[in-house]
């Protein structure tokens, strides 16, 4: 990828709420911003993908983008990416699966059903990804940093 000369582009939000990309004169409506490494490098490696699923533009680093574009991309990402980060475990209905977890996340409190122990995935650097029965992924960025009660509950499943 040619990093030295990033192509000129402008982003715009249409009245229909879709993202419009003007890439060197070529205009595409309905562009989607996708994180290539949503967990490992959320602010790097972002791709702007056309409505047909074809890649239009690769962005190495979000912070190097012009302010207006960056804001639009961040907005597009935040309305699409949904991976609540668990801050605290309030309770679990049972230590045997399936069970209902009541947790506090960075997006508020919620309940979810853990179907089986295989719904908990270990990621590098000690992170945990917990997938609920509807396929929503909850992230525990640092299990050791949780409070004592949460750690004790979580420990029973690891």
């Amino acid at each position: 990828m040619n990093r030295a000369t990033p192509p000129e582009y402008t982003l715009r939000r249409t009245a229909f709420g879709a993202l419009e990309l003007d890439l060197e004169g070529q205009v595409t409506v309905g562009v989607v911003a996708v994180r290539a490494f949503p967990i490992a490098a959320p602010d790097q490696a972002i791709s702007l993908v056309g409505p047909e699923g074809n890649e239009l533009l690769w962005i190495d680093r979000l912070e190097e983008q012009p302010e207006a574009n960056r804001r639009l991309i961040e907005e597009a990402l935040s309305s699409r990416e949904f991976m609540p980060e668990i801050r605290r475990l309030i309770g679990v209905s049972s230590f045997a699966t399936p069970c209902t977890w009541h947790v506090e996340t960075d997006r508020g409190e919620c309940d979810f059903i853990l179907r089986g122990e295989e719904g908990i995935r270990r990621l590098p650097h000690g992170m945990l990804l917990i997938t609920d029965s509807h396929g929503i992924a909850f992230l525990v960025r640092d299990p050791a940093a949780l409070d004592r009660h949460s750690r004790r509950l979580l420990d029973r499943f690891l």
Partner: protein
Amino acid sequence: MAWVDLDLDACLCFSPGWLVLTNVRLLASTPDGDDWQAWSLSPELSLRQHDHAGVGALELFGANERLAVWRYTLSRNVSALRLVDLFATCRDRGELHSAATDNVCPDCKAPLEADAEECPYCSRELQTPPSTWTLLRLWRFAHPYRLQLLAGFVLTLLSMAATLVPPYLTMPLMDNILIPFQNGKPIDVSLATRYLSGLLGAAVVAWGLGWAKTYILALVSERIGADLRTTTYEHLLKLSLEYFGGKRTGDLMARIGSESDRICVFLSLHLLDFATDVLMICMTSAILFSINPWLALVTLLPLPFIAWMIHIVRDRLRTGFEKIDRVWSEVTNVLADTIPGIRVVKAFAQERREAERFREANRHNLAVNDRLNKTWSLFSPTVSLLTETGLLVVWAFGIWLVSRSEITVGVLTAFLAYIGRFYTRLDSMSRIVSVTQKAAAGAKRIFDILDHVSSVPEVAHPVRLNDVRGGIELREVGFRYGNRAVARGVNLAIRPGEMVGLVGHSGSGKSTLVNLICRFYDVSEGAILLDGVDIRQLAIADFRRNIGLVLQEPFLFFGTVADNIAYGKPGASREEIVAAARAAHAHEFILRLPQGYDSLVGERGQGLSGGERQRISIARALLIDPKILILDEATSSVDTETEKEIQKALDNLVRGRTTIAIAHRLSTLRQADRLVVLDRGQVVEVGPHDELMALQGAYYRLYQAQLRHQDVLADEGEAS
């Protein structure tokens, strides 16, 4: 009225909200929850739904702008989709009820019985955690052996009583013989002989009874273990592919193999010992109380204390043992991952890294074990210490009682003899904590499998189809894999005997449709009907008997060629097998094998080429003479020459059957009656080849792209 109770707000934070549709307006609660926003239904409004990564969105569009967007997690998806449907009918007709004329489930669109109110497929979603009294559930497997168990129990009681006789005899032996002798009386030989023969007799009887009870109970527990294993395996085989997709082979193997064995050992050894110990304690205390209540009381004093200690440690140990189990299956999983992929490991010279991965898993195993052992190692010595202290108390109190002549020396000796056994039993009883927890953890993991309700459940009263014609209808079929919708709103009717080709880019949902038609998975929405009957109403085995499946990667089991061909019909005669092999153009190459049809194939067996294996699998499908045939990229893994051979074999197979074929090379679908073009889980075009070409749509583009590709290949071929 229809509504969705939203659970997310615009910036994807969890917060409740409502979206309500009446016959004239669409109402939404504002983020603060106090006010309502409303839009009157008018023709230019449209409501669209889409979802990604577990979050759904409803967007309301006006004539030239987006008016609003609402978000929700997929648990609300069903009602959201329903709202979108109703919105459209409501806007166009002004009335608020579903357009469907049949009685269909409002949620998942599956057709219902005329009088049914609840959808049997929707109510399945309930998830209840299994009970923690897992070990008691083993009774289900012990029940058939209850008579043997009762016999074992009676024998246990008797042998116990026999072992309690000798300490009792030490009392008169001491008081009537030894003490009088010390006081100057001569030894009464006949009395001494009587006591001693009593001791010998008790020992012999205890030996005989002990042997009988151990033998019977070991026999029973071994059978219970075997039943548990086979039942679990049988249940496992009935689970849907979804279950196998989410589990690792090593873990499942460990559960069925070693866990059931551990439970078996627990039942035959530890549980038996424990029951014996409890009986021993009860009987001993009865005897002790009958001799001297005060001394008995002091003797039994440490007991509740030890019981309390056991209880405290129990909790910590249980979680520890569950952890060890999990870590242990992690270790086996590394092996199960690496050994089948050994060619890749070696090709990329990653032996060191795989070894490191195994070492890492072992290190984790060690760390968990170390932590547990810290508690565990403290436990046994503490029990020993308490035991010794208990003995000390009995000595002290006993000496005091003897000095006050309240008991004889014989009584004290008998007490100490009893207590010696008693406390050593208590020590071994404390071990029951860990083994029970281990066995309970194992039982839980086994019952996890047994409790798992197949996501492709068998109906209670299946409909029987006697004469299958092979007409398949897909009605509003939708399927979701995890959080990805892989098929949506698919409608397709396939006539009996028709050949349909499924085409599309990879990931367009072709294989998903085939998996749904085979009922490897159940649809999330809509229904699939065979000759007008929902396939979920049929017994699975009955239904699958009508399906012949030829896969891209043919799987041969270890066994002879003939066994493999007759896999779907074990009782097939030799003539049938040969006829099927002939029709599959496999006969001749099979004859070339050193042992003909008796050659061993499969893992460790005769090496066969991809085309040969494929033709055996075609013969396998031919032999069961199915009404429906499914070819999932049956020819794509072989070269063109072999493909021709296989194509000839397939032509025999296709004749007179409803055929659904997936092929990457469009040329192999020439003789299909109709082609179904899929894109991102939806049907975009249906029709015969010529018609679709004339249409110049998605199929035309696919075909042109492949033609170009072939030209390039041909050019390259000429150039070289």
